């Protein structure tokens, strides 16, 4: 039996099974969306595949009753952990009126749900970074104990808003966790054409905050880093920059064909480190999951996905004139 690494982190068996289940649910929802897209039922998908470990590991390290998350478009694992359901996500994929993120106004991947403190997001990348800083500032002003958690891709870490937001958080020692999900590509542009530093986390020192790079395929390593960052934040010691290194296992989106810019070998090689597989293997080696339990979890997850799909497919669209609503507060 393999070394038990999770107990040392204060995680019990039940919790890490929950983590695994959430990762798997994220994966299966994503896979279903591709099928729906390829069969012409939904116009667009953008994937979490390959990043579930980072997303779920990180979110589990937060306080789900009070912290705020500002996810980017791939963060299915984050929003599931924070209370969004498969049904919610499918409603968004089908652009139906009940979609909690936007009522079918935004593309899938533009998450938002106030009751779960999932902050509404947009398409222009990195604009959420200063928002996370502002929420942390507000929390501090109001004497709250909350931490904000914001994610973005490594390409997006080149936007001015990353720099300006990180520096603001550093100066005001705000409890913000900046997590860069480095998946090695920004659409077709490989990391060496995006950044000239060795690690995205090398940027942390420029904002007077600690920076760490962790294996994004290992949810426990990510959990540990985020937990430490959250603790630091709550202790009033300011922000942290965390880089999770993994790989984007799908094309950028359903509109992309990644064969024009990366070799099949490279993708195949990355798939051997697929966190669903490697974390599943860990659970088995640690004696927490056997084949039977694995199948049960899989079936349970597939049921959830099937039900969500069916519900969403049959749900109504918002009526046309509803487009006129909510530009401003209603008087």
């Amino acid at each position, binding site marked *: 039996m393999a070394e038990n690494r999770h107990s040392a982190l204060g995680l019990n068996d039940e919790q890490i099974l929950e983590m695994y289940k959430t990762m798997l649910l994220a994966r299966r929802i994503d896979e279903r969306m591709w099928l729906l897209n390829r069969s012409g039922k939904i116009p667009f998908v953008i994937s979490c595949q390959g990043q579930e470990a980072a997303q779920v590991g990180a979110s589990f390290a937060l306080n789900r009753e009070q912290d705020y998350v500002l996810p980017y478009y791939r963060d299915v694992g984050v929003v599931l952990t924070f209370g969004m359901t498969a049904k919610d996500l499918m409603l968004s994929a089908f652009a139906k009126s009940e979609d909690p993120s936007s009522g079918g106004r935004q593309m899938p991947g533009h998450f938002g749900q106030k009751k779960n403190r999932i902050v509404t997001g947009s398409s222009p990348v990195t604009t959420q970074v200063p928002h996370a*800083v502002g929420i942390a500032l507000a929390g501090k002003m109001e004497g709250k104990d909350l931490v904000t958690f914001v994610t973005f891709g490594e390409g997006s870490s080149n936007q001015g808003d990353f720099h300006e937001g990180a520096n603001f958080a550093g100066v005001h020692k705000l409890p913000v966790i900046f997590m860069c999900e480095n998946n090695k590509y920004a659409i077709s542009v490989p990391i060496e054409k995006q950044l000239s530093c060795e690690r995205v986390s090398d940027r942390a020192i420029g904002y007077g905050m600690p920076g760490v790079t962790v294996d994004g395929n290992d949810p426990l390593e990510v959990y540990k880093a985020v937990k430490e960052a959250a603790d630091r934040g709550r202790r009033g010691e300011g922000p942290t920059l965390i880089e999770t290194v993994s790989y984007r296992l799908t094309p950028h989106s359903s509109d992309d064909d990644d064969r024009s810019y990366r070799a099949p070998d490279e993708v195949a090689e990355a798939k051997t480190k697929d966190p669903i597989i490697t974390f599943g293997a860990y659970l088995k080696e640690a004696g927490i999951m056997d084949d039977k339990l694995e199948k049960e979890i899989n079936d349970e997850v597939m049921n959830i996905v099937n039900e969500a799909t069916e519900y969403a497919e049959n749900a109504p669209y918002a009526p046309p004139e509803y487009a006129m609503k*909510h530009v401003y507060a209603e008087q």
Partner: protein
Amino acid sequence: MAVISYIDAVTMAIREEMERDSKVFVLGEDVGRKGGVFKATQGLYEQFGEQRVIDTPLAESAIAGVGIGAALYGMRPIAEMQFADFIMPAVNQIISEAARIRYRSNNDWNCPIVIRAPYGGGVHGALYHSQSVEAVFANQPGLKIVMPSTPYDVKGLLKAAIRDDDPVLFFEHKRAYRLIKGEVPNDDYVLPIGKADVKRKGEDITVITYGLCVHFALQAAEKLAADGISAHILDLRTVYPLDKEAIIEAAAKTGKVLLITEDNKEGSIMSEVSAIIAEHCLFELDAPIQRLAGPDIPAMPYAPTMEKFFMVNPEKVEQAMRELAEF
């Protein structure tokens, strides 16, 4: 009622709102210890402390973006852009974020931020300290743009902006700051955002304008009155979204309309005002819709000769009003 300056009305409104509601706070460059480069926030740092009057790093996208984040949480940030000209790095945060938050989240989230900025020329500010920037934002549903002309309006509208549940851009004419004085009640009052205001009633010609030019028009109207010409003057106050009814009513009243802005002529707020009139009361017009505006050059030069050439002033206004009356 005390007579105070336009800028003192700004400070008064902010102070009263900060006293009233602990969620209101100020952030921007030099707004704290220095009290702002124009002194609009003078005394607030001393009264409310550095937690609520925040000197930020020099980064406008963060000033707007951090403010938006705080507003998402439920605070009432008042963000200052040191000069309207320097709002440009924050355009993405304002247009892509603040303006769209309520709509894109289907009313789940909202963004009650006020972004204040001094605009306008006539202060030897040259190209980058003189601009009118409202047209950049006046096509973005979700935003409101307020540009008051008098201390009384400043106080009532700034308070309304701070209490508004949606983002408001609040542009203050920097030359009006100390030049324009007026009576301002010490009481708490708000004025409605989205409503234009008749600043003078008249029968012969209609002038529609906003900001400092309102005063030029009022001065000119006095002179015209001496010659028996009666001018009706509508102050837009909110330049986006426009008060269509008030515009139509004012235009129809005299049938002769002059639109005045200090901004460049092509693509200004006045283009839309003209389009509203041409769409809704064309047959009530007795003259082409005239516009008096800055020339279509990047912004006003530093040299006094060229600055004066650019700026709308009382003489230019009077002349345009007389020409229209004689049409």
